[in-house]
């Protein structure tokens, strides 16, 4: 019996050790990126690479001098906030109706957008927006990014709406409440945490999305993610600046993801997995 117990203890020690090792593998590349962003330009390309150095903020400071970084950041903000709001505006009532009527096929149709390669929609969008002279406009980017955000909002909110007992709706109906009133007076407040989760996930996915703004933006409306492509071209000589840009671009999604980590997996898998 004691043998088994000590066996068990060794097992859980090994478990902890392997877990730490996995953690190190996961975090090292990111840590290297952040570390490199604080290195002087001569040090960041030093070979052998250095682990200890006197940190500097030069790379961050020079970002706004050498690139239109603040403008790109503003563009990213406009497109992301715009498409997240649009996604909520379209998706929240749609999820409510789908949950109330139990008619979910329209929601399933939006999954096509989630599964098909973005390039499938990009050609017609390009022709459409060119027709309306909207290439390079914020609206083209907000509308296309809403194709990402709306399905997220619908599928994250559906289980939240489903959790509201039907008796709540019935009681409200008896009191003469119209469905529209029930939606914004009763249902929406009850799913407020779902709204927050869906908004944050939509924000992260819109922020991270590369392809649409690569094609549909111009130099004035380019998002940070699309501009990264240019940073790399210029960054071949300036790794410090490149890593500073990469760190700043990754910061908003990482902070937001930490806030919603409890709902992250069920949200990301669109309800396929309860995490």
């Amino acid at each position, binding site marked *: 019996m004691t043998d088994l117990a000590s066996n068990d203890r060794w097992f859980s020690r090994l478990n902890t050790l392997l877990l730490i090792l996995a953690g190190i593998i996961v975090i090292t590349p990111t840590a290297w990126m952040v570390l490199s962003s604080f290195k002087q330009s001569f040090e960041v390309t030093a070979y052998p690479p250095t682990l200890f150095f006197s940190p500097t903020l030069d790379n961050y400071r020079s970002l706004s001098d050498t690139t239109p970084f603040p403008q790109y950041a503003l563009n990213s903000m406009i497109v992301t906030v715009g498409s997240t709001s649009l996604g909520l505006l379209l998706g929240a009532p749609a999820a409510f109706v789908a949950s109330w009527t139990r008619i979910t096929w329209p929601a399933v149709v939006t999954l096509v957008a989630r599964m098909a390669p973005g*390039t499938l929609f990009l*050609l017609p969008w390009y022709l459409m927006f060119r027709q309306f002279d909207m290439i390079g406009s914020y609206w083209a980017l907000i509308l296309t990014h809403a194709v990402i955000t709306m399905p997220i909002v619908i599928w994250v909110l559906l289980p939240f709406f489903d959790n509201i007992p039907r008796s709540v709706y019935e009681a409200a109906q008896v009191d003469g409440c119209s469905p529209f009133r029930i939606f914004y007076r009763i249902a929406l407040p009850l799913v407020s945490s779902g709204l927050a989760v869906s908004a944050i996930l939509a924000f992260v996915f819109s922020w991270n999305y590369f392809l649409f703004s690569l094609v549909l933006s111009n130099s004035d409306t380019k998002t940070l993610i699309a501009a990264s492509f240019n940073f790399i071209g210029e960054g071949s000589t300036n790794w410090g600046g490149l890593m500073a840009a990469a760190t700043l671009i990754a910061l908003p999604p990482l902070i937001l993801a930490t806030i919603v980590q409890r709902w992250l997996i069920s949200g990301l898998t669109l309800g396929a997995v309860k995490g």
Partner: protein
Amino acid sequence: MSKSISLRGQMAAMSAPSVIFTVGMIAFPFFYTIWLSFQTMSATGTIRYTGAANYVRMVSDDQFWNGLTITAALYFLSLVMQLICGTALALLLFRAKKLPGIVRSLFISPFMMPPVVAGMMWLVILDPSLGAANYILTSFGLPPSEWLASPGFVVPTLALIDTWQWTPYVALIVLGGLQSLPPSVYEAAEIDGASKFKTLYRITLPLLLPTLVTAAVLRSVDLLRFFDLIYITTQGGPANASSTLNIYGFRTGFEFFQLGYASALMVTLSVIVFGAVLVLNRLRTAVAW
């Protein structure tokens, strides 16, 4: 009577914006691309119906077959690595029981960062001459690698990066599956004196199969249309060695402006993605318990 009409009317009014948006931004472009795949655009910009010519052209297009091969290689390599590493990591996390929030944040950081940032970061780490990866290799006496710059090694390298990024995601999905398994089966196995490995192979893994297939479905959708990381790091190079179908289709459309042929490529890729999802979903019902 009038009440039920107003109920229906209000329901319709509330879903109308999303339906209009879905029709305009998703359904219409979807069918337009299918239509476009049967057309050819001439140099003067006029569009002409050419039947299945674009699809026929695909059959004899080496670049298409190259793209298909690379897509398949990248898909299977990444999926297998992520499922194996993800399951292993999930088992470790499950045994550790309590997870501090900071550890969870650490594990979600790779897949919540933009793939584009992951690309920038790995470009620097894997730089053939000054990168940290080659320094580590050579300091262990191993030969340095060209990584993303090597035509022979670019696909495994991309698969490795994607595995680094998405293994924790698979792990958290599998962890959810592990936590939902009934504890009674473990207790029964323990009473029967089953060893740890026997319990794992005979009980845990078979019960986990539906979760694993779910993870495979979710990863398949992303892996088959692999784009961001490749476009940022290699743009399909060197020498088209990482030119997946998605990359090839994109370049055909937006670099060479062959809209008809690009549409045919995109439709083909979509059929592959939807086909994989359907097959895996079938598999999921088959292994459900």
